[in-house]
C-alpha cells in the first residue's frame, strides 16, 4: 500500500498556506485533508546539503478526513481551516507542538447549504479582519459569509455572484470578490451592499474564451483592482472601472494575483511565478515545482520568505523574491 500512498502524494495538490501569528511556522493544506506544519527556522536554517531528500513537515494533522482543506487563515488564537461545509478553529499551541496529530478542533462553524442542493458548500477563501474579529469567507454557494468569531455565528452574507467564489480581497472598507461566473464584484462592508460589478470576460482585450470566463484571483488597493482567471491578468482603475493594463503571461488560467509594495505577483497554470510592475515589466520569473500555483504567501518579519504551493507535493520557498531558495515536500 506504500506504493499507493506515494502515488497519492504524487497527485497531491496544496490549496492554501498561512503563517502562524508568531511568524515561526508555515502551514499548508491539501486536497486530501491534511495540514502540514513547518518550522521555518528549521527549514531555512543550515542543514546538510548532501541529503537529496526534501525536508518534510515538522508536524502534520488531518483536520477534515475525506475532505479538502480548501482555505486556511490565521487569527491571533486559532488556526482556521475551511473545508466543505464548515470552518474549524484549532488551538495554535497544539498545532505547533508534537501533540499536533491528535488535535481536536476548538470550535466548528457550519456553513449553511442551499436548500435545493445535496452538496455542502465549499469555503474557497477566507480573510480575517482583526478590528472586528470577523472572517470573510468566499463560499461555494455563491455567497460571501461574514462570520463573527465572538459568537461563532454568520452575521451576514453577501450574495450576488451566480457562480462559486474563487477569491476575495480586502482593502480598507471595501471587499473585492471574483467568481466562477466571471464577474468581479466590489462590496461596501459598511452597508453590506454590492457597489460595482466588472465583467472582464466581456472585454476583448482581456477575455480568453478558450480558457473560460471565471475569475481565479483578485486583489485591490485604494486606486487599483487586479484580477485574472480565464481572462488575462489585468489591472483596472477603481474609479473609472477601465482597464489600465493587460499583462501578457503564458498562462492557462490565473489562480494567484497579489499586489505587494508596488509589484504584482501572479501565478496560475504555468510553471513560473511572475513578479511584474504596474506597467507590465517583468521583474522576476521564478520557476515553480507545481503545474498550477494555487497559493502564494509572504512575510517580511522575522525572515523574509515567499512560499509557493500548488498542484504538486512540493512547496517552493524564496527568501529573496527573485529566485527559488529551497523546496519542501508536503509529506
Amino acid at each position: 500500500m506504500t506504493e499507493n500512498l506515494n502515488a497519492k502524494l504524487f497527485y497531491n495538490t496544496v490549496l492554501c498556506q498561512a503563517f502562524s501569528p508568531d511568524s515561526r511556522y508555515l502551514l499548508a493544506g491539501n486536497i486530501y485533508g491534511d495540514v502540514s506544519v513547518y518550522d521555518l527556522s528549521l527549514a531555512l536554517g543550515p542543514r546538510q546539503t548532501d541529503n537529496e531528500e526534501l525536508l518534510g513537515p515538522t508536524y502534520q494533522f488531518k483536520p477534515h478526513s475525506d475532505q479538502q482543506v480548501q482555505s486556511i487563515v490565521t487569527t491571533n488564537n486559532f488556526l482556521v481551516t475551511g473545508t466543505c461545509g464548515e470552518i474549524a478553529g484549532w488551538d495554535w499551541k497544539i498545532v505547533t507542538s508534537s501533540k499536533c496529530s491528535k488535535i481536536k478542533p476548538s470550535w466548528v462553524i457550519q456553513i449553511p447549504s442551499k436548500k435545493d442542493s445535496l452538496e455542502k458548500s465549499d469555503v474557497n477563501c477566507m480573510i480575517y479582519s482583526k478590528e472586528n474579529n470577523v472572517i470573510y469567507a468566499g463560499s461555494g454557494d455563491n455567497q460571501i459569509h461574514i462570520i463573527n468569531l465572538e459568537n461563532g455565528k454568520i452575521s451576514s452574507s453577501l450574495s450576488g455572484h451566480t457562480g462559486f467564489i474563487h477569491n476575495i480581497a480586502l482593502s480598507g472598507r471595501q471587499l473585492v470578490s471574483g467568481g466562477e461566473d466571471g464577474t468581479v464584484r466590489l462590496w461596501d462592508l459598511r452597508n453590506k451592499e454590492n457597489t460595482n460589478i466588472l465583467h472582464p470576460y466581456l472585454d476583448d482585450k482581456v477575455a480568453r474564451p478558450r480558457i473560460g470566463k471565471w475569475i481565479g484571483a483578485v486583489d485591490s488597493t485604494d486606486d487599483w483592482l487586479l484580477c485574472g482567471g480565464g481572462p488575462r491578468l489585468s489591472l483596472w482603475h477603481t474609479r473609472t472601472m477601465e482597464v489600465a493594463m493587460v499583462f501578457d503571461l503564458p498562462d492557462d488560467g490565473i489562480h494567484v494575483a497579489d499586489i505587494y509594495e508596488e509589484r504584482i505577483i501572479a501565478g496560475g497554470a504555468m510553471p513560473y511565478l511572475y513578479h511584474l510592475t504596474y506597467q507590465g515589466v517583468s521583474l522576476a520569473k521564478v520557476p515553480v515545482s507545481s503545474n498550477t500555483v494555487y497559493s502564494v504567501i509572504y512575510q517580511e518579519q522575522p525572515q523574509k520568505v515567499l512560499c509557493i504551493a500548488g498542484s504538486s507535493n512540493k512547496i517552493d520557498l524564496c527568501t529573496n523574491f527573485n529566485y527559488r531558495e529551497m523546496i519542501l515536500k508536503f509529506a
Partner: protein
Amino acid sequence: MGKEKDTQDTTLKTNSSSEIDKETALDMDMYKTIIMFEEEEALERSSENDAESFFDTCNQIRNNMSEIAKLKSNNDASTKEDIRELQVDTALAFMELKKLNRMEKFRTKFSRDSLTTAKTNVDNRHLQLQNLLYEVIHLKKEVLKCLQFKSKDENILLVSEEEFYKEAPESISRLETTQNDPHQKRLARLEWELTQRKQLALLCDNLSENKKSVAASIESKQSRLDNLAPQLRGILEASKPLQESLGLPLDKIKLEHEKAALLSPPLYILYAKASAFRDACDTTLVVSVEGDEEEAKRTFNQDGGQESDSDNEGQSENIPEETPVHKKRHHRISKEARQEEKKLRLLQKHPLSVKIIVSFKNDTKLKLQFYYFTVLKVITVVSDLLTVNLGGISVGDMLASESVLRELYPGDTGFDSPNPANTYQLARQKLGTFSSLSLGIPYKWAQWMAGLHFVPVDAREQKSVIQDNGQDSVESVLKEIKKRVRARLDLCAEIRQLESGSLSIFTDSIDAIPQKIATILHKFNISSWKNYCNTFNYSESHKENFMTSSDIFYEAILRRGSSELVAYIAIKPDYPKVTSVFRIIFNSNISAGVDIHRDIEREINVMWDKPPTLSAQLQRLRSCFDIYLETESMAPREKIFFHSVRGRTRSRPYKYVEIGGGIFTHR
C-alpha cells in the same frame, strides 16, 4: 795462447825426446813424473808469490829491453857485449815467465777439477732432499686419509648410553671393561643394537603374518557379502509389485532421498522444506532432485578439501593481480588462460538442482528449477510457465516466465544478486552484472527458501526480511507464487477480453463503477517502455518514477465522437496487488491544461479503496472522459451532476455515487 805455447813446448820436448828412441817408455815415464812433480810444485806454491815474481820478471824484462835499446842507440862497439849479456838475461826472464805460466795453468786446472767434484756432490744432495720431501708429502696424505676414514657403525643410530646400561644384559654391557674403554663400549652398544634389531625383525615378520591371515579372512567374508547382494536385489525386485500394489513408493522415496543427500546444503534445506510442505499441505506439488548424480558424488567427496582450497585461492589470487603488467608474452597467455579458468570456477554451479512443479487449473504448470552456485554462494531460479494456449497477441510477454515472478516481493527484481559479495567477485573477473550472465534469476525469496540470508544493501529492506524470516518461508513463498500466477492468468483473461473490445460488467468491486458510458474502448494493444518514454519524454532517472522498465506496457485508445484519448498503461509485476498506472493524452482537438490530465490520472490511479482491476480502471477512465467532455460542453450532457466545476482547482465531478440512477460528484 799460453796453452798453444805449452803444446808447442811439449811437442818440442817430444821432438827432442824422440831423439832418444830406445828410451821412449822411460821417457814417457819421465814425462809423467815431471808432470806430477810440476803439479805438486804448483800446488805447493802460492799464487800470490807467483804473481809477485811474475811482476818482477816482467819489470826486469822491461828494464833489460830499455837498457838494450839505450845501448843500441849508442851504437858503441863496446856495448855489444853488454847487449849480449842483457839478451841472455832477458831470455832467462822469459823462461821464468814460462814456468810461472805453467804453474798457473796447473793450478787453474786443479781448482776447476775440485769445483766440478764439489758441484756433483751438491747435486746429489739436492736430489736426495727432493726425494725425501716428496716422501714426506705422500706420507702426510696417507695419514690424512687414515684420519678421515669413517666406519659404517657411525651411521647406525644407537640407543643412548644410559638406556643401554639400563637395558642391556651384563653379558653384553660388561660394565667393567666398557666403562673406561670407549672402543669396547661402542662395540658393546653395537652388539646390543644388533640383538635388538634381530628381535624386532622377528616381531615384524610375525605381525605381517598375522595381517595376512586377517586380510584373508576379510576377503572371504567380503566375498560372502558380495554373494549376498544379488540375492537381496532379487528380493527387492520381487517385492516391487507388492509395494506398488500396496501404494507404498518406498524405493522411489529412498532413491530421491539418497540423491537429496548429495545436494549442496542450501538446496538441501530447500528440498527438505519443500518436500515437507508437499507432504503436509499440498500434494499436487512436485518436488524432485535433478542432475548428474555421479558428478555430485565427486563434488561431494571433494567438498571438504575444496572448502579450504578456495580460501587459499582467495588469498593467493591477490598476488598475481598485483604483479606488474609488463610481463613477458608467454606469461600473459598463461595468465589469460588462468583467468578464464577462474571465471569458470566462479560461475560453477552445483551439479544437482531442485525442481518444483506447481500445478494450477487448466493444466497450467509452473516449473521452478533451483540451482546453487558453489562459489558465488547464491541460489538462482529458472522458471518455466507451461500453459495451454491462451491465445491473444499481447498476452505473450505477460506469461513469459521471468515476468511472472518479477517483484514477487516488493523490490525483488532479481536483476542483481542478493549476495552483496558477488558484485565484487564479478567485478574482479570483469564479468559484468549478474543479470548479463544468464545464470538464472537470483530472487530473494529463493534465498529465503534455501535458508540463505544476506545483509540487504538497502537498510529499509532489513525490516521486511525479518518479517519473512520464519520456518514457513517456503509455504509463504509458494503461496505467493500461486497467487501471482493465478493473478497473471486472470489478467491474461482480462486483457484478452479487452483486446476483443468488450468490457466485463462489474458487480463485485467495492468502488462503484458507472455502467452507462458513452465513450468506447476503441483499441487496446500492447506497447513498450520505449514507446512510453518517447511519448512522455520520460527517463528511468526521473525522480518520481512510478513506471519502470520492468512494467508491462499497454496502450488503450478511447473515443467519443471525434474526441480521442490515449492511455498508456503500465501494469506492475505485482498486479493486482499494486495498481496499474495510467498516463493519458488527449488528441489535438481537445485543449486541456496539464492539471486536467493530472486530475483524471489521480482519479484512475489513486482514488480507490482497494486495488482495482485493470478493467475497473479502464471503466473509470471512460467515465472520466465522458465527464470531462460533458463538463466542457464538448459532448451532449448525459450524466447527472450538479456543478461542472468546483473549488479553486475547478475540479470535475469524477466521483461516481450510486444514488438513484447514479450521479457524479466532486471529490
